[in-house]
């Protein structure tokens, strides 16, 4: 279970998160919606441990363990996964090697045996096929020359292989056409179960038609101003953020 209490954070002295309170129980998918600049991506980066995001107050625990004190790789080993809004290109790094290195690092941290190249490729090929990725996906350099949609699917591929316990998907739907959106949603839904939870950051209701959330939260001005069931997303789609933000102010 992810528990965030009174979380505040700043970048370059500018406060972005102004007291986030959020609980995501195991097995649940929560959506975070909100206008641009409300702090959605910052929340993802703070939870994943990116440099330059300074936590100034509050706590974030996963199964009772303080994740804010951990290095990014320790958070990953603890089961946290951030699907990047803008996946990073790694020229000179082969995608298959990258995926295998990541998977084996996490397996090592769990005290599990590492996968050899043959075992890994079998697994990776099956997963990338399931995500309808081009055959050469594993042979190319990480995200280099990938279309926007391919990059997002590569994020979901990483998630499928690393099998996190909680995934934060930061606008994974942006830049996807409807077919790709469905494939990505299927990838997430395949992981759903009692031991998996997700925080889906999105602007649009569209993704939530495919990944139906248990709860929807509206983030504005660095705070969660409203929470509700899936119907909240529909209300937002119909009415926009402005009215809700004005009401909360």
């Amino acid at each position, binding site marked *: 279970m992810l528990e965030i209490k009174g979380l505040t954070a700043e970048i370059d002295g500018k406060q972005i998160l102004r007291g986030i309170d959020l609980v995501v129980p195991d097995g649940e998918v929560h959506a975070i919606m909100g206008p641009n600049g409300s702090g959605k991506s910052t929340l993802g980066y703070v939870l*994943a*441990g*990116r*440099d*330059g995001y300074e936590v100034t107050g509050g706590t974030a625990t996963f199964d009772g363990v303080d994740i804010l004190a951990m*290095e*990014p*790789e320790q*958070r*990953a*080993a603890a089961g946290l*996964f*951030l699907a*990047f809004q803008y*996946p*990073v290109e*790694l*020229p*000179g*790094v082969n995608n298959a090697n*990258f995926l295998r*290195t*990541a*998977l084996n*690092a*996490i397996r090592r*941290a769990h005290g599990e045996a590492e996968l050899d190249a043959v075992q890994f490729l079998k697994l990776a090929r099956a997963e990338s096929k399931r995500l309808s990725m081009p055959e050469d996906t594993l042979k190319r350099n990480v995200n280099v020359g990938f279309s926007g949609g391919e990059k997002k699917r590569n994020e979901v591929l*990483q998630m499928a292989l*690393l099998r996190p316990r909680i995934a934060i998907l930061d606008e994974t739907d942006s830049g996807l056409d409807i077919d790709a959106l469905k494939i990505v949603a299927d990838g997430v839904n395949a992981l759903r179960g009692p031991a998996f939870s997700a925080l889906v950051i999105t602007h649009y209701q569209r993704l939530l038609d495919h990944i139906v959330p248990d709860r929807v939260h509206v983030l504005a001005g660095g705070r969660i101003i409203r929470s509700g069931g899936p119907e909240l997303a529909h209300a937002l789609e119909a009415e926009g953020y402005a009215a809700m933000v004005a009401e909360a102010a």
Partner: protein
Amino acid sequence: MNAIRPPSALREGALAFLARYDGLKARLPGDPALRAAAAELFRAGGLPGPREEAWRYTFLRPLVEQEFHEPLVPLADCGPLLARLPAIDAPRLVFVDGRYRGDLSVPPVQAMVTTGAPALGPLARPESEKMVALNTMLAEDGAEIAVPAGVDAGTLLLVSLGTDAHGRAVAFHPRHAVHLAAGARLTLIEICMGEGAYLHNPVLSATIEAGATLTHLRLQDEAKGAFHLSTVYADVAEGGTYDSFALNLGARLARMEVHARLAGPGAAAHLNAAQLLSGNQHGDFTTVVAHDAPNTQSRQTVKNVLTGNARGVFQGKIEVARAAQKTDGYQMNQALLLSPGAEINCKPQLEIYADDVKCSHGATVGELDAAQLFYLRSRGVPEAEARAILVRAFLSEALDPITHEAGRAALEQAVAAWWETQAA
């Protein structure tokens, strides 16, 4: 700040080499007249100094502060060094402290090899390159390697081991020559390793006849206390290729200087390199590519990874003669500075006298990318491993084009070992 040091230190250093020549000249093998001429050049010119444009960034003061002696132990034990040689299954010519060691060598079948005297070759220019004048004056041994027309001689290792068997620093100046007749092929893997303090000042000239290909992979992994100052000349005739990669990572001060001349139409030269330097090391990769014929091509991708207070130098000169129309020249120098004390000096020079050519050059300097590092770590990859992956990725454009599997594996191994010592 230090003022420019008086050149007298260099002059004194040169005198020590001259004294050695005067004492040895009666017993040195080879043509005494050529040697005497080189000695006169060296007597007049001395060691190269910072006032010369080509030596602006590499100052030989640490070299002249070291006293060098004659290697006197004829059969120095180099078992531990031999054990460190990369496992490449190929014939080998092993030089220990600059002298050929038949007992450690396995001569090739497809190439003719002569040793026992300096292989002067036709290309060296002691009148322009002072270290070559020094080499010509004092060279005692070397390998002359010839591959007959149309023969693929496979792979040959040329190994130099510097030992500390003498109890004091020694200097050696081997002189090698390679001749590939028309259509011949050879992969020459040159490996320099050692222990202790010494000067290794080799000169190699490579004559590549029409349609021949010399692949020259070089691993400069000299002892930490050593000096490596090497000069390679490669002349490439019509349709021939000089395909080289140099890994500059050993020695306290190293300069790998390469002069490639594309003498016939369609000739090509690849002078790729990587310099991995740490601590107080100084590494210099200097190239001069002369396009003397039309439709010639040169490619240089040089990558530098610098940590500690290391200093890296890349100087790349491309000369395009008036006749060399349709020249295609490319040069890229990139540096990754992993510490605040590291420094790179980069000097591209283009001299173009033809009017229909394509020549480009570029240089970048940067640190490891924070976003890439975070991306890897967010996937569970520990920081040290993530850094290693990104450094290896940075080198890939220089390493990946190496098609010789065993050679590339040996170079990759050296890169990985270097990185492990940095991380430790």
